[in-house]
Each structure stands twice: as structure tokens, then as C-alpha cells.
């Protein structure tokens, strides 16, 4: 019987050992519920977002992943029928607390959208708009520095440095999306939320943005919503799977894509109906 006992002592590939975790929790949600009128869009979500890591939210349309992303910088505040309850924290501070200045919060937790949406202004103006309204720079020299640093950070500097006064809308789709990322990082955020940032881009432009995401994670905490599961697999360290408003499973990305624990995750990522 000794034999039968040792035989079953198997261990999961990614099972953690006793060593202390090497990450900090940047944002966390506990018991987060969201209602749009009568519709219960998110059901009691508990999650930790790790600092300097990329967390990907995946799931079918209408599963609540974008809704949850928008809770993280209170973008849902603008929707009247939307009611958010539960605890959402940034560095252990409740972001739905009355004392929180939402504009300041959104400077700390920036956002990049599905469709590149540069202002109909010059590339330069697109970048300095945020730092100006947040009073992050005083003179032209400081603004110039922010523009160069942000464009370099977004991997766009070499492509646009000679035409900073051209309109941002004249850039290619991929360049526009990187301009939006440069605009997001110009205000020195701590967290960058990305809502399907590559869904309107071709594979090469997508690869540039993915490479950028990989570089950005050393400075920022990144949360990305994507419909492209291969993209989630490529860019993220953690993956959360949402289904019908429920956070089904959240784990190391490698575990999710090799051996997910939940049947629903398995069904979704392998392309079967759950």
C-alpha cells in the first residue's frame, strides 16, 4: 500500500513553495458588485492586482471584464444607472471614498481605449495636455522634456520627433495608439488600464504595442482587457477569466493556458462552449 500512497503524491507544476511572494499588491477588489439598473453586471468580485505586473482580463462579451476595468479608475461614475458596491483599493486606500478627487485618481490610474482617440491637435499638444491641467510642469523646457520622455516611453519618439507639430490624427492607427499610451504616461500614472488596445491594429502594430506593454511593466502596473487570448498569453503574468459577471478564475497566465482549474475557463480558452 505504501506504493499506492506515494504514487498519488503529485504536485502542480506552478505550485508555490514556501518562499515569500516577490510582488506587492497595487490594487485590490473585495466583494465588488456592479448593477446597471436591474442588471447585475458584476457579482462579488475578489481580486488582487500585482504591482509591476501585467494582469489580463479575458472572457466572452458581456462577461463584466470591461465593467470591472472601469471600476478601477471610476469611469463608471459617469453612467447614472451604474451602481458600484464593495471595496476597491489603490495602495490600500479606498478609491470610492468621499475624500477621493476623481481627477487625481485618474491621473494615478490612466486609461488607454480600444480605438485610438488622439485629440484633434498636434502630437505635442496631445502629450502636454495632461501635464498642463494637472500642473505637472511650469515652463516650456519642462514640457519639452515630458514630451520627449513620454514619446520615448511609448516607443514613438524616433518616428515623430521631426513632426511634433503635425496633427496626431494624421498618424497611422498603430502610431495613434502609441500616442495615446504616451499621453497616458505623460502624467506619470502608477497604473495603466488598457481596454482592448490592439483590437483595431494590424499584427505588426500589435506586436509594437505588446513589446511596449512588456517594457512599461517595469515602471507601471498594467491591467489589460483583451478578446485575443493569445495576446493575454503573450503579454500578461496573471490572467483573470470572467464569465457572466463572475470572476471564475485568476492565476499565473502559464497555469491558465496549460492547466486551468475551472471547466468554464477550459471551455472558453480551448474554444468550446461551456
Amino acid at each position, binding site marked *: 500500500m505504501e*506504493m*499506492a500512497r*506515494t*504514487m*498519488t*503524491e*503529485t*504536485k*502542480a*507544476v506552478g505550485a508555490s513553495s514556501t518562499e515569500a511572494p516577490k510582488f506587492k499588491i497595487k490594487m485590490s477588489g473585495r466583494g465588488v458588485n456592479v448593477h446597471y439598473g436591474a442588471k447585475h453586471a458584476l457579482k462579488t468580485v475578489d481580486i488582487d492586482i500585482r504591482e509591476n505586473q501585467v494582469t489580463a482580463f479575458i472572457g466572452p462579451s458581456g462577461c463584466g471584464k470591461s465593467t470591472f476595468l472601469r471600476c478601477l479608475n471610476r469611469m463608471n461614475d459617469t453612467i447614472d444607472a451604474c451602481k458600484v458596491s464593495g471595496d476597491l483599493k489603490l495602495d490600500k486606500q479606498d478609491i470610492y471614498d468621499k475624500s477621493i478627487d476623481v481627477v487625481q485618481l485618474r491621473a494615478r490610474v490612466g486609461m488607454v481605449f480600444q480605438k485610438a482617440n488622439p485629440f484633434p491637435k498636434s502630437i505635442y499638444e496631445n502629450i502636454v495636455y495632461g501635464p498642463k491641467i494637472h500642473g505637472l510642469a511650469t515652463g516650456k523646457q519642462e514640457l519639452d522634456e515630458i514630451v520627449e520622455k513620454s514619446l520615448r516611453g511609448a516607443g514613438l519618439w524616433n518616428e515623430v520627433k521631426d513632426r511634433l507639430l503635425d496633427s496626431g490624427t494624421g498618424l497611422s492607427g498603430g502610431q495613434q495608439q502609441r500616442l495615446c499610451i504616451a499621453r497616458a504616461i505623460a502624467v506619470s500614472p502608477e497604473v495603466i488600464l488598457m481596454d482592448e488596445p490592439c483590437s483595431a491594429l494590424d499584427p505588426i502594430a500589435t506586436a509594437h504595442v505588446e513589446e511596449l506593454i512588456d517594457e512599461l511593466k517595469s515602471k507601471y502596473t498594467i491591467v489589460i482587457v483583451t478578446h485575443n*487570448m*493569445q495576446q493575454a*498569453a503573450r503579454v500578461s503574468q496573471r490572467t483573470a477569466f470572467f464569465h457572466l459577471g463572475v470572476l471564475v478564475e485568476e492565476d499565473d497566465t502559464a497555469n491558465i*493556458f*496549460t*492547466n*486551468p482549474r475551472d471547466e468554464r*475557463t*477550459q*471551455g472558453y*480558452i*480551448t*474554444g*468550446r*462552449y*461551456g
Partner: protein
Amino acid sequence: MPNDHIVKSFDEELKRLSNLLARMGGLVEAQIATSIQAVAQRDGDLATSVITADSRVDELERDIDDQVLRVMALRQPVATDLRFALGALRIAADLERAADYAKNVAKRAIALNQVAPLRPVHAIPRMGAMVREMLKDVLDAFAARDVAKAVAVWNRDEELDEMYGSLFRELLTYMMEDPRNITGSTHLLFIAKNIERIGDHTTNIAETIHFLVTGVPLRAERPKGDGGNFAVVGASKPAE
């Protein structure tokens, strides 16, 4: 998998892979059975037929490799599908090795026909029957994704090792008895070793099935019988 893929052609490709593996498994089972029969019945023609048919096994392995490569490149499988594709690759490699051992048994059957029959040859069909049953069970376990059955095969290999160990010791005494037995005994020993190695590949397949189904490797140390690895001739026992 309880559900089919939304894209039906993906299911068809995976099914094609399963069918190729089933065919290869059946062919390797037959190769082993025939090679053992060739030894037991001193039948050179049977032995030759095994040697000739080995290229068909190799061909099936290449077909499986091609099919796995295709699925990986075109479908980017994940989770169970990925583990299945990897598993198919490994199982095909183990089956191919097992068939090589059967071919080697057949070659030695031809050599054995040149010398007088040896009594210990009776152990070969017993070992052969055992390894064939193990292979059949492990292939059934694969088809049914039956981890318990695969693990049972994995545990049974110990018995095969022990059969090999006792045959090894028996042959040693034969060779000491009469040096004219050495040629035949050596061939028999290699035949037994080949069968024992087929058993090892069977346990590899069992491990692959465990990983394929559960997503975790079978890590425990496999129980091993005395395979004669430590057997020596004329060693004096220390005084008690």
C-alpha cells in the same frame, strides 16, 4: 472533453490524430506479439515479417509528427488540447521505440534458430504476454482517458522487471554449466532485456496519460523490480 469545439474542423484534426495513434498502437501490439511468437516457434519467416513491417510503424510516427505540427501551427492549442498534442508526440515516440525492440527480438529469433533450443526460452512468451497486456491496457487507458488504468499499468512494470531478473539469473547458471549455451543464452538475455525495455516505454505512456488528463506530472518514484542489475556470478556471501 464533454464538449466539442465551436470550430468543427479543429475536432476533426484532433480526431485524426487519435485515429493515427490508435492505428500505430495496434500495429505495435501486433509487432510485439509476432516477434515473441517467432522466438517461441523458432519461425524465421514470422521474424522476417516483423523486420519488414517496422517501416510502417516509422511511417505512422512521421504522420503523427506532421499532424501535431499542423495542429500546433494552425490552431495554437491550449490547456487540454495542448497537452493532448504534446502527449500524442510523446506516445508516438514511445511506440516507435517499443516497435524497434520488437524488431530486435525478431532479429535475435533468427539468430536463435541457428543454435539448439534452450529450456529458459519458455520464460519469453510469459514476459511477452505480460508486456502485451500492459501495452494493450495503456492504449485503452489513453483512448478512455482513464488515469487509474494508466497508473495500474505503471505499477505492473515492477513484476515484469522481476521476471527479467529471475530469467537473468537462470541464464547465468546455464552459461556456467556449459559454455556451449553462451551464444543462445546471450541472445535470450537480449530478447528478455528488449521486452523489459518495452515495459519501460509502456510506463512512459502511462505517465504521459496522467499528465494529459490531470495536467500534473506523475512524480512519484516508480516501484522497480530487481532487474538483475546487481546480479553477479560466484559472489561469496559475507560471513554471518
